[in-house]
């Protein structure tokens, strides 16, 4: 009993510590990729190639003074960044890194991920409201509307994938992609999922909640020092999570590329990391390339384009599977 608890704790640390490191280096990756696309060098002073930059930033934020605005709702103001950060971490409990290498192999893994990612909005909306100031409030409201809108199409994309798998378990979803990755037969859904993931994580071109040209910094204005750092870490944690989800749902997770079994000797976790990194790079790439959407265009894209399209594709997939008798049947 006590030993089991200890083992679970060790597993949790084995996930969280590399994850935090990954979050730190993702901030660097983001800036480096962005800089290279603009023919700049990016951070290159602290450590070799600027590798120690994230730690310098973290230390700087840690030693700054925490400022709580006089009119702020103190409790909610302080809970909001902690909530964002925690939610970004706990989602990793169900992510399979290799065949069966997972902390909690639950039956409803994909629903758990969906539930946790839909909770991310609370950190932002609470932070925006508790700051008791105009710009954060507007940022919080925008983000609430945006995330709720794009969740709908993410949900439909997930249901489409689940139709092809016949199970809600993430390990089963990866196993079902042994012959062909879902990115190929469900390519349109892959694109919809990727764009919705950008919107869900408030990344450019959908970074309306913090749009600095209109809202200064949106919900983050009043935050400083460690509470700001927690928001930032949570945001990047969510970005890595969404990349991991994309690779699990559409790029075959830990399945190797099947070159007649030539590449099968590379272990599963490495494939998983490579695919996640690829999606992560695309996230940074998009940030450097595309200008920000206008707010009404964002809403139009979510409700009038993605929602009908993903619904149509869901019905089409179901019809196809039923017609050709390909529905996965269990039990």
């Amino acid at each position, binding site marked *: 009993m006590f030993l089991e608890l200890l083992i679970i704790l060790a597993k949790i640390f084995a996930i969280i510590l590399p994850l935090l490191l990954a979050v730190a280096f993702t901030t660097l990756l983001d800036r480096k990729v962005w800089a290279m696309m603009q023919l700049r060098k990016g951070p290159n002073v602290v450590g070799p190639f600027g590798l120690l930059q994230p730690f310098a930033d973290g230390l700087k934020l840690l030693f700054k003074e925490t400022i709580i605005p006089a009119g702020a709702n103190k409790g909610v103001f302080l809970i909001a960044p902690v909530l964002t950060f925690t939610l970004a971490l706990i989602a990793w409990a169900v992510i399979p890194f290799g065949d069966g290498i997972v902390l909690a192999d639950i039956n409803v893994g994909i629903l758990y991920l969906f539930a946790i990612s839909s909770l991310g909005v609370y950190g932002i909306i609470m932070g925006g409201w508790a700051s008791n100031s105009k710009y954060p409030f507007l940022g919080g409201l925008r983000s*609430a509307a945006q995330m709720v809108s794009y969740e709908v199409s993410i949900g439909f994309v997930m249901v489409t994938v689940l139709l092809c798998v016949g199970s*809600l378990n993430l390990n089963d979803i990866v196993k079902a992609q042994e012959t062909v990755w879902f990115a190929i037969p469900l390519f349109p859904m892959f694109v919809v999922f990727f764009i919705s993931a950008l919107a869900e994580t408030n990344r450019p071109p959908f970074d309306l909640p913090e749009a600095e040209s209109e809202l200064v910094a949106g919900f983050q204005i009043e935050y400083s020092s460690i509470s700001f750092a927690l928001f930032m870490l949570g945001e990047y944690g969510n970005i890595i999570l969404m990349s991991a989800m994309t690779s699990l749902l559409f790029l075959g997770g830990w399945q190797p590329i099947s070159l007649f079994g030539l590449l099968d000797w590379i272990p599963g976790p490495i494939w998983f990391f490579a695919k996640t990194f690829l999606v992560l790079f695309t996230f940074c790439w998009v940030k450097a390339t595309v200008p920000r959407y206008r707010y009404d265009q964002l809403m139009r894209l979510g409700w009038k384009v993605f929602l009908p399209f993903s619904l149509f594709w869901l019905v089409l997939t179901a019809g196809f599977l039923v017609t050709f008798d390909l529905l996965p049947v269990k039990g």
Partner: protein
Amino acid sequence: MTVTALVFYLFAAITVASGFMVISARNPVHSVLFLILAFFNAAGLFLLLGAEFLAMILVIVYVGAVAVLFLFVVMMLDVNFVELRQGFLQYLPVGALIGLILLVELLLVFGSWSVLPEAGNLAAARAPDAATLSNTDALGRILYTQYLLPFQAAGAILLVAMIGAIVLTLRSRPGVKRQKISDQVTRTMETAVEVKKVQPGQGI
């Protein structure tokens, strides 16, 4: 006392406490936040029962969507909630009556079970064997076979309610300039740019 029982009492205690805070918190936003906490702990109770599908759906639907809209509305409304509470006690008899009816009904159900354990078998749909089916499967099987018609009817009613809400709130005001994407995209050089020959010293 087993771990399960301990966890149950933890979840149950937090659910009841946060439920109480929902109706007693002064700030309406705090009320909604406590409501979310109550939802969460209810989901935890579902998990303890082994109903993981229901637990996740509870979080997704109520916490992820409904409560966000609640929070949205409560933050935007400029209602003086303290004033609203002035006549709070006059609703006490009605509330107490509803609570009493619910309590009696629950007692009836529970009583029939404890007096006559076979009563559980009289239910219209038997519970499927939990060992062979995951509860997502089991729920889907019952919902889409035996209860297909009520399920579809519920969906139709929700659709009607949604259309009704849109019809009630949709106003088409004259004189509002809307962006027409198709018009913008179909513009050509000829319709967009007017080339004029300007004579020197005259202007247009």
